[in-house]
């Protein structure tokens, strides 16, 4: 198993190198001189030259890349032009907020998507199946930022049940934290629930036709045992893999959700950085997201092997 993980990590290295080259070149496609953006109002030639020297912008591009990636490998992603704080520190401060949002969203996604997918497959062709499919398709087609706005309008503005924005760390005030995060997590969770529902349904339908399910029924097992023990257990494999892969969707969704509900997380960090032309932060966030996504892919592959006895034996 360890050698399998090692092999998978080795495969990820070229991908990571290409990602880093891509993220680095983002700065290079920027129209105009980045030093002018850094200097702000101060256009003194000496200041501009000082900044060029400081950030090694007079060096050949290839040297600049190695300087940048060397720093990144030691956890130095540069300094935010806006706040003067190290980018790594900024990301580390925002990450727990987004992780909380991601965990709560996944809880919603699983609680809605998986039971709906199972029911839809078991009751295939019935009204329930059609309704579940329409709900899933709607979940995939509703822009989640609009769903967020509509929920704020209904739940916060009209009913006054939950706060429309803000954030409270979970360990400081758990109740208040859940109050502020429940709506954003629901918004983000619905889109994922729709994807999960569709995949659960399709995986369940595949397994429901298997011989061992027919045998389980013929043995006289209750329908509940057939569905949960014999069918779902075997259908869960692609769902687990998919859940790890939904990480990317989750992060992208968090960008908009955090913007609407004014949550100071990872997503809001990148949007604010974009508007402040804080390119080091944008680069840092994109690089960290890509690393996270590659790691989640690795987790998905390892889980697949761990949960699948046939794959375990093949290793």
């Amino acid at each position: 198993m360890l050698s399998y993980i090692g092999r998978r990590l080795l495969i990820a290295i070229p991908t990571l190198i290409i990602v880093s080259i891509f993220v680095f070149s983002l700065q290079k496609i920027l129209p105009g001189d980045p030093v002018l953006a850094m200097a702000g109002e101060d256009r003194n030639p000496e200041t501009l030259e000082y900044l060029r020297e400081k950030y090694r912008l007079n060096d050949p591009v290839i040297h600049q890349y190695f300087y940048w990636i060397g720093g990144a490998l030691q956890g130095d992603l540069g300094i935010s032009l806006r706040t003067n704080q190290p980018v790594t520190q900024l990301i580390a401060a925002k990450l727990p907020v987004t992780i909380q949002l991601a965990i709560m969203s996944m809880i919603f996604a699983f609680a809605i998507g998986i039971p709906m997918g199972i029911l839809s497959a078991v009751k295939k062709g019935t009204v329930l199946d059609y309704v579940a499919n329409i709900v899933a398709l709607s979940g995939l087609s509703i822009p989640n930022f609009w769903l967020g706005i509509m929920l704020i309008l209904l739940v916060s503005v009209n009913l006054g049940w939950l706060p429309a924005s803000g954030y409270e760390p979970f360990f400081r005030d758990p109740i208040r934290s859940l109050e502020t995060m429940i709506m954003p997590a629901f918004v983000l969770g619905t889109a994922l629930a729709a994807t999960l529902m569709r995949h659960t349904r399709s995986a369940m339908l595949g397994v429901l036709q298997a011989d061992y399910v027919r045998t389980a029924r013929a043995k006289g097992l209750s329908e509940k045992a057939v569905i949960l023990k014999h069918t779902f257990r075997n259908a869960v494999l692609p769902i687990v893999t998919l859940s790890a892969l939904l990480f990317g969707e989750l992060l992208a969704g968090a960008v908009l959700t955090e913007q609407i509900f004014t949550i100071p997380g990872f997503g809001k960090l990148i949007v604010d950085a974009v508007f402040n032309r804080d390119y080091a932060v944008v680069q840092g966030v994109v690089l960290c997201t890509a690393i996270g996504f590659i790691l989640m892919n690795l987790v998905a592959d390892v889980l697949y092997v761990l949960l699948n006895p046939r794959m375990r034996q093949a290793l």
Partner: protein
Amino acid sequence: MTVIPETGAETLGRQESRAWKKLKSNKIAIFGFAMVMFFIVIAVLAPVLPIADPNATSWTAIRQPPSAAHWLGTDEIGRDIFSRMIWGAQASLLAGVVSVAIAVTLGVPFGLISGYFGGWTDQIIQRMTDALLAMPFLILAIALAAFLGPSLTNAMIAIGLSAMPIFIRLTRGQVLAVKTEDYVEGARAIGLSHGKIIRRYILPNVFPPILVQATLTVATAIIAEASLSFLGLGQQPPSPSWGSMLNTAKNFLSQAPWMALWPGIAIFMVVIGFNLLGDGLRDALDPREN
């Protein structure tokens, strides 16, 4: 007697008529198609429709609820929301179609080359695809739009480039499945050039799944454009776009809720239309379904 292998185009011709019949009998897909056509027609006819100027402001008609004079109400500077919705359809559909065209135009040739030639070319293209896929679609689009500068054109380029790897992967997979078929081997045996084999025998067979994916990606691209415009990275004011209308609307939720209602419904309808059509096309073109 020599048996002349059937070309990809001939197989496709038969598949096409069967798929078309199947698509026509799928009421849900036709409903999706009708929704898409409705939005295309209003977007195309926007300049000739008897509607108000979408950018004309009126200080006497600020944030008015829907009425006979303004069917969908007015916005924070008195512009007619109905008119802006119709003009906004242009931006959304244009962004959806153009960005997918960019993704297909770049992605399909890379996929064809990668799958057909294999070896190092394949390895290099695939590692680059892996890298692009490692960056979530919207985050990549935001980063690109940020570095290119905020505008509808740059948003389309950003979305197109972000969607490109899906088409590289899909095309490569299809090419790998097709390139060992007898008719491709036959074409190679009679000495046809690589270019001719790809054009005449491979491309027609990889076309159906690309068409399905392109339809579904238009839906994703429309949401992405709305998201970028919502963040201020797409269509710039005063030009109307559903995403930027929602961005403004969120500041006036308690005073003018209708401002947030219509653009969201429009995005939802056009996206569900493309999704239904894409699902229908997939069912119609899937050989296992025939």
